[in-house]
């Protein structure tokens, strides 16, 4: 079953479909007098709504606007459409509409962006409605044919039945007629208690192709006549190309062109990618490294350290008077933590294939946001929207690198423009991918807690010092200079609300210290370090007054019942409070992120003071609703793998203005054998929609760090742990 088809919706058929009635062109187009025109897929099958195409053989094609990058959103969205559509799940397949089609149809499929753990929670209502509306239209078509009231008909498994007479027909047979019906407005959606497909651990639609190697990724993409390009951008951020000596490589076998790309990059185009890559390695390039050529991690760390005690800082959350509470404390506890730059390091390096002529610019690319890739294509090609198109390909990992940044699309189009008519596939080397990341921002944090004479926590000051993402990426979202994203997980309210409302005097502020390293959104974004900062420090506070870390937290969470519920759930399942097996020590963490409540209890053993084995992590998540529990379990485990790899192994450092770690030998990752057992408690409490792709990533690291403390009595405050001589067994 072909799972993702890049639909080649005949431009003519859908353009006529969306144009004023009466244009009377195009193959297979019906223009019933006075009725809406039918929009068709390339095989002629009619759209019932923009979300649902039905083929005569009853195959249902569900349109998916978001991107599948291993997180299972494709299947989840299809489940939601199918639930309301009442179709036969075994005949469901999916298709990505293109952003060009979307723009031409006034964004019929809404937002394409896949990030912020939003894929399901932001689109669930309208995709369900798309399915429900199609169902009503299909039933109406059957009822019209039978000349019976639609209210006497029902649909299940792609079969429509007329109750009183028992007459039946299938979706495929009435699709044509249904497509001509004016879509009803405001169709009611099912009550969640009636869900049959949503909420079930349905097998994913994309797994088989991925296991058999049939799945095509951008890096695999091939087109007739295609050439291959390798590129190098100035490794010092902000630097430019001064000169390069193309003559030195032009005579090499297969090499066709050497181009400057924009201000700051040079590409070699050849018959085969390896020819391009090796030629580029041999190409003499002189860089104008610009003003940042001397920046180092040590310099950056010094700037961050200064920010920990600076007078001015942006206040993200506050209550009472923390400064007074600290000044009048009977006892104070203070600690400084640090978290590094991180590259996303997806398994598939950045790539895009482009073909440019003055009449048309097309791009094939793995992207988390088809519309953003389209916007980059418009800008780089200089062509109007109706002469451009982007075709989405499955991603070999996104994690945030492929959502907000389409530098590789801009590069591919700029290369293609220099060789009109010839498709060119631009594929970055691993080194280029490591060097030209959009990095998780570097920060340090000083936390100070105040206790009264009775060992009650009276105040907390959390001072974050470090880089703002939004200043570089979207300055329009700053609030009087403050970057609200810095406070994810420790915010006043909303999707990232701090979970300790019981702290009477609170100050969480940010001394912004930006660097020349371009920042981006790394899976989970700022909850990764904020969860370590808060949850490890809460543990430190508890231990400083000899209180149990769970009890200590509970006392501060009376006004945070949902945060507390997930924390209690993991504690109970892990057996907190009961003796652990010999040599096993436990640690806890909790946070609210992307509107979901998550918690973890990790169990570790430590040998020789520094060889850590993570045996088990019990995780609980309350995402409001759970569309596919099996998928959520896998996202939890996958997020732990990503987060623990960062905890133990990963950092990017800056030397001579550039990133020092250029491959997996210096930017390692966990292996399968090191993976702990993950036990998931999925506890949707209903009434809200929280994300799944990211939230849980933040609780594994602090839970493990707290467990290590329980095992060794040593508090680890710097990440990655390899820098402290700690290894993962």
């Amino acid at each position, binding site marked *: 079953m072909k799972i993702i088809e890049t639909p080649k919706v005949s431009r003519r058929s859908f353009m006529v479909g969306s144009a004023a009635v009466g244009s009377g062109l195009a193959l297979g187009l019906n223009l019933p007098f006075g009725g809406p025109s039918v929009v068709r897929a390339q095989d002629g099958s009619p759209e019932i709504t923009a979300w649902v195409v039905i083929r005569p053989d009853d195959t249902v094609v569900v349109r998916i606007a978001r991107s599948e990058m291993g997180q299972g959103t494709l299947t989840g969205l299809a489940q939601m459409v199918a639930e309301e559509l009442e179709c036969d799940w075994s005949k469901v397949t999916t298709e990505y509409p293109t952003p060009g089609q979307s723009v031409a149809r006034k964004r019929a499929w809404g937002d394409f962006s896949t990030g912020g753990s939003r894929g399901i929670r932001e689109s669930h209502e309208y995709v369900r409605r798309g399915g429900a509306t199609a169902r009503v239209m299909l039933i109406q078509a059957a009822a019209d044919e039978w000349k019976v009231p639609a209210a006497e008909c029902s649909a299940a498994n792609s079969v429509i039945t007329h109750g009183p007479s028992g007459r039946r027909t299938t979706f495929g047979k009435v699709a044509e007629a249904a497509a001509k019906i004016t879509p009803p407005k405001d169709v009611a959606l099912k009550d969640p208690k009636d869900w049959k497909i949503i909420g079930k651990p349905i097998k994913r639609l994309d797994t088989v192709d991925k296991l058999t190697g049939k799945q095509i990724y951008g890096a695999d993409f091939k087109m007739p006549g295609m050439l291959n390009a390798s590129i190098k951008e100035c490794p010092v951020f902000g630097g430019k190309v001064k000169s390069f000596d193309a003559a030195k490589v032009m005579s090499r076998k297969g090499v066709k062109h050497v181009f400057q790309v924009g201000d700051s990059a040079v590409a070699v185009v050849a018959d085969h990618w390896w020819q391009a890559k090796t030629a580029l390695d041999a190409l003499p390039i002189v860089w104008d490294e610009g003003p940042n050529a001397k920046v180092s991690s040590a310099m950056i760390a010094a700037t961050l350290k200064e920010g920990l005690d600076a007078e*001015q800082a*942006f206040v993200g959350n506050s209550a009472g008077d923390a400064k007074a509470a600290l000044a009048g404390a009977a006892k104070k506890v203070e600690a400084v933590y640090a978290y590094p730059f991180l590259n996303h390091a997806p398994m598939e390096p950045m790539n895009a294939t482009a073909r440019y002529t003055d009449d048309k610019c097309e791009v094939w690319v793995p992207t988390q946001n088809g519309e953003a890739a389209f916007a980059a294509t418009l800008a780089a090609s200089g062509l109007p929207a109706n002469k451009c198109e982007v075709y989405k390909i499955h991603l070999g990992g996104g994690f945030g690198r492929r959502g907000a940044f389409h530098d590789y699309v801009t590069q591919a189009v700029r290369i293609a423009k220099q060789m009109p008519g010839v498709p060119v596939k631009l594929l970055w080397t691993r080194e280029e991918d490591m060097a030209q990341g959009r990095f998780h921002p570097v920060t340090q944090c000083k936390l100070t807690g105040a206790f009264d004479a009775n060992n009650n926590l009276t105040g907390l000051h959390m001072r974050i010092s470090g880089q*703002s993402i939004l*200043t570089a990426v979207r*300055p329009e979202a*700053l609030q*009087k*200079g*403050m970057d609200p994203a810095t406070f994810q997980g420790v915010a006043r309210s909303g999707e990232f609300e701090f979970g300790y409302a019981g702290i009477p005097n609170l100050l969480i502020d940010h001394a*912004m*210290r*930006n660097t020349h390293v371009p920042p981006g959104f790394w899976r989970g974004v700022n909850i990764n370090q904020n969860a370590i900062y808060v949850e490890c420090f809460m543990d430190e506070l508890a231990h400083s007054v000899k209180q149990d870390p769970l009890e200590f937290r509970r006392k501060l969470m009376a006004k945070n019942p949902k945060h507390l519920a997930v924390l209690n759930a993991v504690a109970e399942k892990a057996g907190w409070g009961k003796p652990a097996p010999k040599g096993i020590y436990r640690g806890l963490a909790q946070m609210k992120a992307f509107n979901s409540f998550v918690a973890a209890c990790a169990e570790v053993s430590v040998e020789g003071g520094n060889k850590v084995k993570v045996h088990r992590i019990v995780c609980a998540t309350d995402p409001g609703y759970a569309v596919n529990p099996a998928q959520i379990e896998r996202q939890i485990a996958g997020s732990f793998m990503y987060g623990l790899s960062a905890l133990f192994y990963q950092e990017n450092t800056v030397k001579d203005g550039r990133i020092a770690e250029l491959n997996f030998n210096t930017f390692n990752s966990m292996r399968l054998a090191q993976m702990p057992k993950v036990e998931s408690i999925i506890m949707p409490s209903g009434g809200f929609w929280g994300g799944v792709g990211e939230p849980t990533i933040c609780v594994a690291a602090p839970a493990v760090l707290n467990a290590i403390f329980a095992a060794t009595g040593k508090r680890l405050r710097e990440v990655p742990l390899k820098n402290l001589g700690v290894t993962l067994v």
Partner: protein
Amino acid sequence: MANARVNVPATAMRGEIIEIRTLIAHTMETGFRRTHLGAPIPRNIIKFFVCRYNGVEVFRAELHPSVSANPYISFSTVATESGTLTFQWSGDNGYNATESAKITVT
């Protein structure tokens, strides 16, 4: 880049409508940004752009902070006679820049 660049055809027929493209280097600081310490960065923009054809004003633009950095403006004018087109940009903090181009009209 060079401070200002103007693109005017060197020759034209009398009565022909010619297109003129102009570009000037300027940060167009909006006045709405803040430093990383929260202090407002004062506005600093080009506010006026005037084109004169042998001394007669033929085109003017009033710019606001919404105009992108390195303002690009293109417009058209009728080639009436040979002579000189002058371009003037002025703005905050006494900013003043001029550029000119000759045209032969036959």
